[in-house]
């Protein structure tokens, strides 16, 4: 991939808030301009991105973050365009409230991945957030639209208060999944405990998952297996403590 490259020049010593780096428009900005965007380091105030990362390359709608971004929080928050790749593991609140574009984290991601800012009533309103590894707790809270997929495990309270959208967990999906979801889908390819306020409907083959898996395999190289594509799913409707138009689709070997 060509495009822009942000390479961490030295390890982050403190949690650093990257929310202002990619929010709004960025794909048309040259490396030098992106390097001036502010990152707030806990206790140390605001520094330009360029102080933390060497930013290089030509804008083509993509940017790659190289280095250890475990202490980076809110990377890609409010993203609305372009393709963001984090080469390793990212910190908390990746893609917080993102509206469009795509984020691909090659390692793990922290808590509240793709969730809503705590003062917000809506989380992701669009775009695709794909984590190859595991995802922390509270992922996809208040998701309005969009796709969040994890190649590994997903923590507890995934998709809490979801208004719509899709969360796919290739690994185990933690407890309280889909709490108070109005609409929206959680797709559990691994183990999941179905909450008491979800009710079993049927076991079937949802065709739309085939589209989804095709995309995840072709665009993000997630480990989609034939058993996922052509398999059967137990559909649970919920959350019946709310609108109840959401679902958990649990893959089953039956």
């Amino acid at each position, binding site marked *: 991939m060509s495009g822009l490259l942000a390479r961490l020049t030295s390890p982050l010593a403190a949690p650093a808030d990257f929310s202002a780096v990619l929010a709004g428009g960025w794909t048309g900005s040259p490396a030098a301009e992106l390097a001036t965007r502010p990152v707030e380091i806990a206790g140390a105030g605001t520094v330009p991105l360029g102080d933390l990362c060497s930013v290089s390359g030509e804008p083509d709608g993509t940017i790659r973050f190289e280095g250890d971004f475990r202490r980076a929080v809110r990377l890609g928050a409010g993203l609305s365009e372009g393709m963001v790749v984090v080469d390793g593991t990212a910190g908390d609140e990746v893609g917080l409230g993102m509206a469009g574009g795509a984020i691909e984290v090659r390692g793990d991601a922290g808590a509240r991945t793709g969730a809503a800012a705590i003062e917000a009533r809506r989380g992701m309103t*669009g775009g695709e957030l794909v984590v190859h590894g595991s995802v922390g707790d509270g992922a996809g809270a208040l998701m309005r*639209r*969009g*796709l969040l997929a994890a190649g590994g495990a997903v923590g507890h309270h995934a998709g809490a208060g979801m208004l*719509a*959208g*899709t969360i796919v967990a290739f690994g185990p999906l933690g407890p309280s999944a889909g709490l108070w979801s109005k*609409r929206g*889908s959680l797709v559990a390819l691994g183990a999941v405990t179905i909450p008491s306020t979800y009710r079993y409907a*049927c076991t*079937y*083959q*949802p*065709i*739309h998952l*085939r*589209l*989804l898996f*095709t*995309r995840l395999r072709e*665009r993000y190289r997630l480990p989609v297996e034939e058993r996922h*594509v052509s398999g059967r799913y137990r559909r649970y409707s919920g959350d019946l403590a709310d609108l109840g*138009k959401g*679902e958990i689709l649990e893959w089953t070997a039956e």
Partner: protein
Amino acid sequence: MNLRGAFIEDTFAEAFTMRVARIIITARSPRWAREAALKLTGFATSVIGCKVEAGIERVLAESETPDARPGISILLLTMSKDDMAKRLIERIGQTVLTCPTTACYDGLPEAPDRVGVGSALRFFGDGFQASKVIGGERFWRIPVMEGEFLVQEKFGMVKGVGGGNFLILARSADAALASAEAAADAMAGQPGIILPFPGGVVRSGSKVGSRRIKSMIASTNDAFCPTLRAVADSALPESVNSVLEIVINGIDANAITRAMRLGIDAACREGVVSISAGNYGGKLGPHHFHLRRIMAESAA
């Protein structure tokens, strides 16, 4: 110009701009994709009587469909955007929604001009329908007794070409039919075109209007009816005793040109006197397919 004994007349087919949509039907097996496609494209020969012209474009392999199932692509042509929306909604609603295991997708994802189809069909779900946006496209999941019917929200359409044609003038009805069959077979499955008439062949070529009834849009093409040679202003050479027409609709003029070349080439065989084409003097349709030009490029 002669091709295997058939004279290629120095004339052109005159065709019209129409709206074209491409839909893709998939199903659990090729059988059910085909059943839905046959119903959907039924009674869709001419906008004059059917409001839409439709046909199977080709059979799609699993690797070619959005959901990796067996599929079929279909082209539909109408005179206007509004018509297209109505026809898609009524045909998909009646023939695909109803057909076991099928799903229905837009086959022109790049077309900027889009009409709501799933967005209308969803109401069949009576509030239980759900939508999914996948890769920037919205799909509707409509609960049905069998499971779920998946249909794309919007279908693209482009300006295409309707009414591409050529006429096979033959010594006998048998020769005309054999030639037409060969032409239709050669053209079948060509990307970007359909042959909307039965088996791809029309026997009832028409002229604009009627000599007797003012309100009629079209009536029989008397100049090409062999039985009227003695009483009408005939365009048929003496040796011709039967004429059949191949009508080709396409996604663009190039697709029609390519298909006509294959079709005419296959049509020129034993018993064919000449190949002609229908036109209105070039005054009505913007697309002119000159037979000799098409076939000359073929030779080159």
